[in-house]
């Protein structure tokens, strides 16, 4: 037998001025199962709350209905009061008779009648309330950062600084990412390496940070607070502990013709190599595809010269299993494939390069020692054409529909630096729009045009014709002059679209984190929760969430760290008990619910059922992870059999409210 107590608040005159509170009490007192009904000037006050608590104890109430202000205002207050009197807090219902009744109606009879109906609906729902217990789950106080570029580095440093251990998993042999390859940074033109390498060193030295370089995430299971992750440490064939990074092996290795990835193939490395001088960790790695010893057992030179005895040809991949409370995706970006734009002759001429390649050609630590020389003949280029939006803002299948965001600024930087260093070089930039929202960005771009004499031309390049004399005939449109131009260039630089790392899609699947059609991770809310994935416990840092420059990446990395710290500083996570649950006997296992779940909270089990004829039958049934479910209810409507229901907002409860209102 249910015993409901009804409490009607006057809210001073806020409610009482338009709603006849006494009439409401009288009407609701007559409802079935209502054993107590009272009113009070301020139900949220301490004495108001005491009235509720006393009634719960005295009348052994099984449910409480409070007619007051919006539940968004005081539902928590009243639930706490009920809990302190020993009643499950989820047996409390609030009827909103202030914001949605007394404040909008003037006619007292009308408002009173509506308040009564709202009260009845709340009673009808309360009668079907079930006590809910919010689940608690422990928090593993360790974070995983996937990706060791500037985004991952900054996030890891900030988390470590707050005292939590962090692991960085980086697929390359060193952390540093794209920023390590860049020469200077806009709009201040400070040297990229000079600001990045101290942070890399800090990562190596911070006791709270472990770096798994040359490693990949193999699998992820669990949920917010307690993820289990398997990490594959790829074989380097070099003992990480013994190697001192002296580099002797890389000097002696006889295989000299391996294209150097770090310099984008402009020069060569050996089969055993350290990616670059400031690499972290500074440990050699053997390229198994090129090493003679690993391929056919003939060589072993590096092993002989290594005084530390670090070379180990028998090393194999190692799988490490770790536990984390939070996971950060910081997988960054890649340069999209420009060979898809054949008109730019990237494959036809060595002197058509991408902007990242240009960075290496102007970097003091690069293959040319920072002297800008043409890749084809090593001569100094006198005319350079920069082409914007190569692949960006292209709605064709081969392109990217979005703006890559960083190209306008780095091209201004390239153009300016070129003109500064080589005043005899003419620089043309073909643009569609120059986009410079950012502090000191437009000023920077204008300086390139005004002070450095860079020729900005509004228009596009249609075709590049490599000539026999080694020049590049650039055929373009100048839309402001309304003319077709031909520029004989020595070097053409393509501002290629950036795209999310190819590894991101696979990772997102493992993390059950959602992605957009361009393979950028989706944020939980585009404005209000920009560094969290909709999947609880997964956070986003850097370009994996959308194109950004370094300052933006670093700010987002910090924000991401703050969210992770907030999570890790909790000892326990209290879940929201108003989550979905599936009735196994009704479930078909059809996957409709999982298809609409934005959190990946639903998994399927093959479960054995006893049939009436004593046989058993194995059926696929849905199972909701209450720690992951956020309680939106999308699944409940997708479910055809009604097996899926939502605690706190169950089918029968909402039906009861409908019935009460339409009665």
């Amino acid at each position: 037998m249910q015993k409901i107590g009804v409490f009607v608040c006057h809210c001073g005159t806020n409610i009482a001025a338009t709603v006849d509170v006494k009439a409401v009490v009288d009407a609701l007192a007559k409802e079935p199962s209502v054993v107590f009904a009272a009113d009070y000037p301020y139900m949220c006050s301490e004495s108001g709350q005491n009235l509720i608590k006393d009634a719960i104890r005295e009348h052994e109430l099984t449910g409480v209905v409070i007619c007051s202000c919006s539940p968004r205002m005081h539902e928590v207050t009243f639930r706490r009061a009920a809990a302190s009197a020993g009643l499950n807090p989820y047996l409390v219902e609030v009827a909103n008779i202030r914001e949605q009744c007394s404040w909008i109606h003037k006619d007292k009879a009308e408002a009173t009648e509506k308040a009564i109906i709202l009260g009845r609906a709340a009673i009808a729902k309360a009668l079907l309330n079930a006590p809910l217990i919010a689940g608690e789950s422990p928090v593993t106080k360790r974070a995983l950062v996937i990706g060791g570029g500037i985004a991952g580095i900054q996030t890891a440093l900030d988390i470590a600084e707050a005292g939590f251990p962090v692991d960085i998993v980086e697929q390359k042999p060193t952390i540093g990412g794209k920023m390590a390859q860049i020469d200077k940074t806009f709009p201040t033109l400070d040297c990229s390496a000079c600001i990045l390498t101290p942070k890399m060193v800090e990562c190596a030295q911070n006791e709270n940070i472990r770096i798994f370089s040359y490693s990949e995430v193999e699998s992820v299971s669990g949920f917010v607070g307690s993820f289990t992750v398997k990490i594959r440490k790829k074989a380097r064939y070099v003992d990480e502990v013994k190697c001192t990074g002296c580099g002797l092996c890389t000097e002696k290795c006889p295989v000299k013709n391996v294209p150097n990835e770090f310099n984008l193939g402009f020069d060569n490395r050996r089969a055993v190599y350290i990616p670059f001088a400031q690499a972290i960790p500074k440990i050699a790695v053997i390229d198994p595809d090129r090493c003679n010893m690993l391929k056919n057992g003939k060589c072993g030179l590096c092993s002989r010269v290594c005084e530390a005895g670090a070379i180990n040809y028998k090393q194999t991949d190692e799988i490490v299993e770790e536990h984390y409370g939070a996971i950060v995706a910081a997988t960054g970006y890649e340069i999209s494939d420009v060979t898809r734009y054949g008109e730019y002759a990237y494959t036809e001429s060595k002197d058509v390069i991408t902007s990242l390649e240009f960075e290496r050609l102007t970097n003091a630590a690069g293959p040319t020692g920072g002297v800008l020389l043409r890749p084809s003949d090593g001569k100094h280029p006198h005319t350079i054409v920069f082409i914007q939006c190569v692949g960006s803002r292209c709605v064709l299948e081969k392109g990217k529909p979005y703006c890559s965001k960083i190209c306008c600024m780095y091209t201004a930087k390239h153009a300016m630096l070129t003109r500064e260093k080589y005043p005899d070089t003419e620089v043309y930039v073909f643009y569609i729009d120059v986009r410079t929202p950012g502090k000191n960005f437009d000023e920077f771009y204008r300086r390139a045009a005004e002070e450095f004499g860079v020729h900005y031309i509004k228009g596009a390049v249609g075709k590049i014709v490599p000539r026999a004399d080694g020049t590049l005939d650039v055929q373009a449109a100048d839309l402001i002059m309304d003319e077709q131009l031909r520029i004989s260039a020595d070097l053409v630089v393509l501002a290629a679209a950036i795209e999310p790392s190819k590894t991101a899609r696979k990772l997102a699947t493992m993390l059950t984190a959602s992605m957009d059609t361009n393979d950028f991770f989706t944020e939980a809310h585009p404005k209000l929760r920009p560094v969290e994935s909709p999947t609880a416990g997964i956070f986003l840092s850097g370009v994996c969430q959308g194109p950004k420059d370094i300052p933006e990446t670093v700010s987002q990395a910090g924000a991401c760290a703050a969210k992770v710290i907030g999570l890790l500083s909790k000892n326990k996570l209290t879940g929201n008990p108003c989550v979905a649950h599936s009735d196994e006997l009704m479930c078909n296992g059809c996957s409709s619910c999982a298809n609409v779940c934005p959190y990946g909270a639903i998994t399927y089990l093959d479960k054995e059922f006893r049939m009436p004829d004593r046989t058993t039958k194995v059926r696929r049934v849905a199972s909701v992870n209450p720690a992951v479910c956020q309680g939106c209810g999308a699944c409940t409507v997708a479910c055809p059999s009604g097996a899926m229901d939502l605690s706190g907002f169950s089918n029968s409860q909402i039906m009861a409210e409908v019935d009460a209102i339409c009665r």
Partner: protein
Amino acid sequence: MNKQDLKEEIVRMSGSAVEKCMRCGKCSASCPSYEDMEYHPHEFVYLVEKGDIEKLMASESIYKCLTCFACVERCPRGVEPAKVVEAVRLIVIREQGMNRLKPDDIPGLWDKDLPQQAIVTAMRKYTK
């Protein structure tokens, strides 16, 4: 036809999504007939989108497009300017007496090596 009808007719005939143009000019940068045209491919798209089509109809430019599709191939927005030019030209030559090339003209243009292909193609382009 009024402006709006004319625009709709051209969009319908060409199937071109002129509103997708982002004014990059790659069509005009790619156009081999550029210097012989008064209005260039990007202007065709722009003026059709604005509904300002009479200018184009009156221009010799409609007869200069080679329909070589370089603009169609390279447009990053899938706008297909060549089809827009062809639609404007068809609107013009479909009008009574607007045939650009008449059978009687052909003997004057004749050259013994000229392949039939040149004549049939030109007839198709210039004549209704």
